[in-house]
């Protein structure tokens, strides 16, 4: 069996690996090259060196988008994970009936695409804003910001909850039992026993919410489209707008350079996060 696996393994990996090369590795390096070029379509790229990168740092909209994204990420990571963990705790209690139904219900928003969600929430939020006599989303930065956070919470809490549930169910009963025999309160059990044991789940969830928030595009496009006047534009949307909404060859390379910087930024931030939470994981 082992032998056969070793022999034919590469063969089975091949289709996926080929798809990975064609769909990811090649475009990634081509994108990297294009960020040093001036081009309209990818076939007529002209190498111009570092010009695009210099322009990125003169573009204030990119920096604004970065701060907006950062602010959004911090709040959404915290709220999604806290709520998801709380839900997971509630739904792993033994005596609660119908936990499976609740788990399904909470998970469901995840099955709807970001664009659809964005438009649905746009209608909902606009209705509420209009009822309370506030400016609608397209004119209201605050509503746009909180709208995005509510939308992302609604969509992602269920997903993270499932991961936390898996983690909590893996906490050995021996440990919790020992804790209760030793007279630990449920609060103490949570902090001293359960939490350290689910650190791997926390690592995964924080990683996922972090990258999702930083790369958020669909929901941003559908809910606010960056209105009013780019004030709710996140990094991915800013890149998209630079690339597609602008006329002239000088913008394409600039958008590409932004994308490369964005990619590095996301990798660096998530690596730091991964290190930080991973180091807190405990061995059983």
């Amino acid at each position, binding site marked *: 069996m082992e032998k056969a696996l070793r022999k034919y393994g590469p063969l089975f990996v091949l289709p996926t690996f080929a798809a990975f090369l064609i769909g*990811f590795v090649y*475009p*990634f390096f*081509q*994108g990297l090259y*294009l960020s040093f070029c001036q081009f*309209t*379509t*990818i*076939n*007529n790229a002209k190498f111009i060196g570092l010009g695009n990168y210099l322009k990125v740092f003169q573009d204030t909209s990119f920096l604004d988008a970065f701060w907006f994204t950062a602010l959004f990420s911090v709040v959404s990571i915290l709220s999604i994970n806290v709520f998801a963990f709380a839900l997971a705790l509630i739904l792993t209690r033994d005596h609660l009936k119908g936990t499976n139904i609740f788990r399904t219900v909470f998970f469901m928003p*995840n099955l709807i695409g970001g664009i659809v969600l964005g438009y649905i929430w746009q209608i909902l939020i*606009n209705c509420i804003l*209009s009822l309370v006599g506030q*400016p*609608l*989303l*397209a*004119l209201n930065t605050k509503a746009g910001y909180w709208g995005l956070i509510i939308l992302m919470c609604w969509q992602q809490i269920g997903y993270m909850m499932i*991961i936390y549930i*898996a983690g909590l169910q*893996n906490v050995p009963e021996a440990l919790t039992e020992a804790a209760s025999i030793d007279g630990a309160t449920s609060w103490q059990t949570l902090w001293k026993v359960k939490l350290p044991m689910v650190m*791997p*789940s926390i690592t*995964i969830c924080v990683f*996922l919410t972090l*990258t*999702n928030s930083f*790369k958020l*595009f669909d929901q941003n496009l559908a809910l606010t*489209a960056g*209105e*009013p*006047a780019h004030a709710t534009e996140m990094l*991915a949307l800013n*890149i*998209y707008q630079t*690339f*597609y*909404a*602008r*006329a*002239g*060859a000088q913008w*394409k390379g600039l*958008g*590409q350079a932004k*994308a*490369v910087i*964005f*990619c590095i930024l996301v990798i660096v931030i998530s690596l730091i996060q991964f290190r930080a939470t991973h180091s807190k994981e405990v061995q*059983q």
Partner: protein
Amino acid sequence: MKKKLLSALLTVAMSAALLTGCGASTPAETPAEGGDTTQTEAPQEEAPQEEASAEGGSVYYLNFKPEQDEAWQKLAEAYTAETGVEVTVVTAASGQYETTLMSEMGKSSAPTLFQVNGPVGLANWKDYCYDLAGSDVYGQLTNESFALKEGDVVYGIGYVIESYGLIANKTLLETAGYKVEDINSFEALKACAEDITARSAELGFSAFSSAGMDGSSDWRFKTHLANLPIYFEYQEEGIASTPAIKGTYLDNYRAMWDLYINNSTCDPAELSAKTGDDSRAEFLDGKAVFYQNGSWEYGSLTAEGAYTDDDLVMLPIYIGAGDEANQGLCTGTENYWCVNSQAEEADIQATLEFINWCVTSEAGTTAMANDMGFVIPFKAAVESPNLFVKQDTAYTAEGKTPVSWNFTTMPSEEWKNGVGSALTAYAADQTDANWDAVVAAFVDGWATEYSLAN
């Protein structure tokens, strides 16, 4: 435990990649959705016999106007039936033309015929525009000013002339006690609109349909209405484009915008969410007398017997500037055909023959006039049944001067968006400070965007 967790992690990571997609870092590589249905490989055996140069060539037209998609498909079929040359017409979704064009152009079977919307749009595609100077179709133009030229190089050819103005429901106007002839200046329009607003509860309709600032409708104001202050300024200065607009007529622009939003079917604070369809539906339902839009709306306003030619009229947009007695509709073009210079030589020739056929042959000109409702600036043009187009001709015959389309000289889309955002904010809260923001977006934004683009 570890193993389980690892597999859980992998599963989650994989599904996360599926859910979020991974296009963020490589936007240039994402192929266009929707344009993929094309098969443009020319069938060699069907090549036309009479033209040696275009042998084996085929045409791939990336159409800009969704309203005319069906008519183009039919015309393409007719051409293929007549000559054997394959013509593929693909229409980009509304508002997605540039995006679609960009990704289609990157393919091996790129569009051979595409369009740009004027000098600003041309900046993107200049390297791809075949010089049409010596072509047959250029010779067919009734006036050289309909071509998009730089020096002696002809980059594009305007293929449709359109007009826009204030579409009015004559029946409602008469119910309110006004005649079309009464509305002959900004003052008259203002008096009429405000009178209708005052009596709207009794009349059951409003003066203007909602001036929606949703993306499907905001171009009517940030582009088309904004053309008027630009036009009058250009006239005064005697220029055709400018690196820095002064905004001489912005007070008129404000007065007109105030009139639109305060005499409308809805609360101005709700305009940001109103769509183009909302506005049209209000006009079709008889809830509003005036509806600012263009000749391209004729089809949807008369479809299924909604309105007949007797119900409708298009008035010039009076903003209280210039010689109002002699002002006509806003007439011009922002649709220029360009031939892809980087296509195969045979395809270029086939494309040139196709567009020449469209504007000279009986089938072509009839289809463009009747099915598409276009007025085409070519010698063999057939008269269009489009009421608004006929009105434009009538106004011109009366000696009125059409307002030219100067929005093709607006520095960028970004500029339009800036003005649009500021207009929306002003509509929700009509203070001088908010209007100053519109002026800033208009005047300062112009200079900034112009310097970025040039």
